[in-house]
């Protein structure tokens, strides 16, 4: 009885912490976002895209009910200066892994219509050049905290 409950809880936790989606040969691993301060109008989405298939995939956009639009952005910090540029699409070659992560490529949620709360699951639909779409949920980490840089 208790072990079943524990297992159920564990499943819930792992679903939130390391969830994954599949679209053909493409694995979308642990999509996540940050909780946003009140009044913030932009959010981000990060995830690992693993193309296990033999066909290259091209991410062309995304939509979410929580934002007016979603853009693919590339961020860099060079010489202490943060720069951000919109890119039209993102290629995930056959066999390639592309990491959307802080300090690099991310999806920017432009025009948030509500604050994202920690532990929220935020629906997002990814669209690809071949016409395929996949609906995923972003797990909202605390403001400024991401998997891998938990502040101890």
């Amino acid at each position: 009885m208790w072990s079943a409950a524990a297992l159920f809880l564990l499943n819930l936790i792992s679903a939130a912490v390391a969830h994954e989606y599949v679209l053909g040969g493409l694995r979308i691993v642990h999509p996540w976002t940050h909780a946003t301060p009140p009044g913030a109008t932009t959010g981000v989405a990060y995830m690992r895209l693993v193309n296990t298939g033999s066909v290259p995939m091209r991410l062309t956009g995304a939509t979410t009910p929580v934002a007016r639009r979603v853009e693919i952005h590339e961020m860099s910090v060079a010489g202490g200066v943060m720069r951000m540029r919109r890119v039209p699409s993102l290629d995930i070659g056959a066999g390639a892994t592309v990491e959307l992560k802080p300090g690099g490529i991310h999806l920017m949620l432009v025009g948030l219509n509500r604050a994202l709360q920690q532990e929220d699951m935020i629906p997002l639909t990814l669209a690809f050049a071949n016409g395929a779409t996949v609906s995923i949920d972003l797990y909202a980490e605390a403001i400024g905290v991401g998997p891998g840089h938990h502040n101890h």
Partner: protein
Amino acid sequence: MRAARLVALTAVSLLIALALIARLGVWDALFPPSTPSFGASIVKPFALTDTNGRKVTEHDMLGRPAVVFFGFTYCPEVCPTTLADLTNWLGELGPDADRLTVFFVTVDPARDTPTELGKYLASFDPRIRGLTGNAADIDGIAKAFGIYYQRVEIEGGGYTMDHTASILLLDPSGHLVGTISYQEAKDAAVAKLKRLLRAGGA
């Protein structure tokens, strides 16, 4: 005749190349904005507004060690991450951090009004004071501090800001004594803040 055409053609190509360099930000990449050197006195007279609408001048930045970060509230990653880090570090320092002056200066005063900035900063350590002002005043303090910022239009509407992502550390007399880079390890950052407090003659 032929030579004249060649000259004209060369001139046009040069102009196009220069325009491209300016457009792509290659110039800034080749010649990054000059950061003041350590030890330089960077606090010049300024008049900005905090999130309660109060006037803040250089006198509020002097007399105690200061931690200054430039950003904007529409910033999706660097600013909330840095403010969350700062909150964490100030928490680690505890009451000692009360002896620091901590400012978050917007580089996007058009959108970051005192009210908007106040709402945004409510998620972070209350010792972080938000500063905004008119475009000229923001430009003045950014220049004095060696902060690069640039409005970048986003295709399809709206804009974002490129900006210096480092945190500046100032001694009580307004000299730049250190920086903390984006995503610097917590231990290193806290050590720098402790050193700053000690140098502040605590």
